[in-house]
C-alpha cells in the first residue's frame, strides 16, 4: 500500500517446469521460506520489481513527512511538538532504511530519487491530501500509520532479506506513531470544546476514504498480484488487508465517539466483518497519476529540498577532504 501499484512485468505465472534450472532453484528457495540475499542469483524481473516496490515505499516515507511537517510550527503545546517531531524523524529513518536495502539490489539512490522528482516513480496516494487542521495530525497517526502497520507487518516475512529486516525495524517504531495519533484525537474528543470535536469529525471525514485507498486497487484490478505473491514480496491481497484494517479500526472509531463518512458501513453478524461502501476508484487513479490536491506541491517541496541542500552536501565533501589533507 505504501507501494500501491507495482508493475512486475508479467501477469502470467510460470510453472516450475517452465522455469530455467536457476529460476526454479530460486523459486523453490522462496517456497521453502529461505530468504534471498543480495549476492544470490535472482531473476531480473524480481530484482526490478523489488527496486520499484522498495523505492515506492521509501519515497512514501519521505514524502509522508510533508503533510505532518505542515503542523510542526503550529502544534498546540511543546510536548505535542516534540512528539510530532520525533514521529516525523522516524519517517525519515524509515525512508533511509528502505533506500539502503534498495541499494543492496544494485540500484542507485540518486537515480531513484530523480525518478520520483520527474514523475516516473510513484509514492502512496495518501500523502497528496492537505492537512487542514490540527486534528489531521491525530488522524494521520491513527489511520495512515494504522494502515501502514497492517501492510508492513506481513512484509517482515518478505522473501528478500534486507527488505524484511528493514521492515522489522520499521514495525518496531510504528506503534508509537499510531498511539500518539489516536491520543491526540481522544484528548480532543474527551476534553475539547465543541469546535475541537467538530474538527476531529471533519478530519476523519476527509481522511477515511483516502486511508482505505492506501491498500491499492481491488483484487480484481491487481493484475500484478499473482507474481508478487509467488515471489512473496507481497503476502496478502489488497482487499484482505483493507478488510483487516477496517475490522480493527471501526471499534476505535466508535470509542472516539465519531462516525465514518460511509452510510453503507455496517457489521455483518454472520461473517464477523464490517462491510463498507464503494470506494471512488476514479479519485484513487487520479491521485496516483499525479492529479490529487497536493501532488505538485509535494514534488516541488522534495525537489527544492534537494536543490537547496546541494551546497550542504558539497560543503561536507570539501570539509572531509580538508580534514583528510590535514591528517595526512
Amino acid at each position, binding site marked *: 500500500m505504501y507501494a500501491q501499484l507495482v508493475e512486475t512485468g508479467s501477469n502470467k505465472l510460470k510453472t516450475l517446469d517452465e522455469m530455467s534450472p536457476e529460476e526454479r532453484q530460486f523459486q523453490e528457495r522462496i517456497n521453502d521460506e529461505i530468504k534471498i*540475499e543480495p*549476492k*544470490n*542469483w535472482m531473476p531480473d524481473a524480481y530484482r526490478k520489481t523489488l527496486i520499484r516496490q522498495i523505492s515506492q515505499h521509501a519515497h512514501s516515507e519521505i514524502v509522508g513527512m510533508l503533510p505532518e511537517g505542515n503542523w510542526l510550527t503550529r502544534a498546540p503545546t511543546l510536548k505535542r511538538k516534540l512528539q510530532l517531531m*520525533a514521529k516525523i*524523524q*522516524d519517517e525519515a*529513518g524509515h525512508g*533511509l*532504511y528502505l533506500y*539502503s*536495502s534498495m*541499494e543492496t539490489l544494485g540500484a*542507485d*539512490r*540518486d537515480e531513484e530519487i530523480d525518478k520520483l522528482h520527474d514523475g516516473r516513480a510513484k509514492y502512496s496516494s495518501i500523502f497528496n491530501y492537505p492537512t487542514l487542521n490540527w486534528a489531521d495530525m491525530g488522524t494521520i497517526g491513527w489511520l495512515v500509520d494504522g494502515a501502514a502497520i497492517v501492510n508492513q507487518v506481513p512484509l517482515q516475512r518478505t522473501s528478500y532479506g534486507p527488505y524484511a*529486516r*528493514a521492515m522489522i*525495524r520499521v514495525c518496531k*517504531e510504528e506503534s508509537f506513531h499510531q498511539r500518539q495519533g489516536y491520543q491526540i484525537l481522544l484528548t480532543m474528543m474527551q476534553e475539547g470544546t465543541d469546535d475541537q470535536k467538530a474538527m476531529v469529525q471533519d478530519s476523519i471525514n476527509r481522511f477515511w476514504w483516502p486511508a482505505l485507498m492506501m491498500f491499492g486497487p481491488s483484487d480484481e484490478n491487481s493484475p500484478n498480484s499473482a507474481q508478487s505473491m509467488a515471489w512473496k514480496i507481497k503476502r496478502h491481497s489488497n482487499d484482505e488487508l483493507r478488510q483487516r484494517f477496517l475490522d480493527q479500526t471501526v471499534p476505535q472509531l466508535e470509542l472516539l465517539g465519531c462516525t465514518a463518512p460511509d452510510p453503507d458501513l455496517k457489521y455483518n453478524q454472520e461473517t464477523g466483518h464490517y462491510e463498507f461502501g464503494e470506494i471512488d476508484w476514479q479519485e484513487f487513479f487520479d491521485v496516483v497519476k499525479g492529479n490529487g490536491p497536493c501532488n505538485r506541491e509535494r514534488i516541488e517541496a522534495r525537489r527544492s529540498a534537494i536543490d537547496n541542500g546541494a551546497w550542504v*552536501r558539497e560543503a*561536507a*565533501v570539501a*570539509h*572531509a577532504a580538508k*580534514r*583528510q589533507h590535514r591528517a595526512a
Partner: protein
Amino acid sequence: MADWPLFEVFIRSKHGLNHKHVGSVHAADRRMAIENARELYTRRNEGVSIWVVPASEITASSPDEKEPLFDPSNDKVYRHASFYKLPKEVGHM
C-alpha cells in the same frame, strides 16, 4: 549523494553482545558516517557502540562458495556435544 560513499554500520547493544550489522549510511567521511549512523540506527537506545566500515572495504564470501566453505563442517558431527551419548547416571553435563 553520488559523491558520498556508502558505509556499512555495526552496532553493539547494551548487553555485551558482538557488534551486529544493522544497515548502511552515506556520508562524506568516516566521522560523519558515525554521526549519521547514530541518528539513523540508535534513536531508541539500540546501542552503546558504533562501527562504520566503507562498504568498498568489505570482502564477502560468494554464494557459489557455499559448498566448499561450509559443507566440510557438516560431516563432523563429533564436534557437537550431542554426539557423545553418556549414561543417565552422569546427569547434566
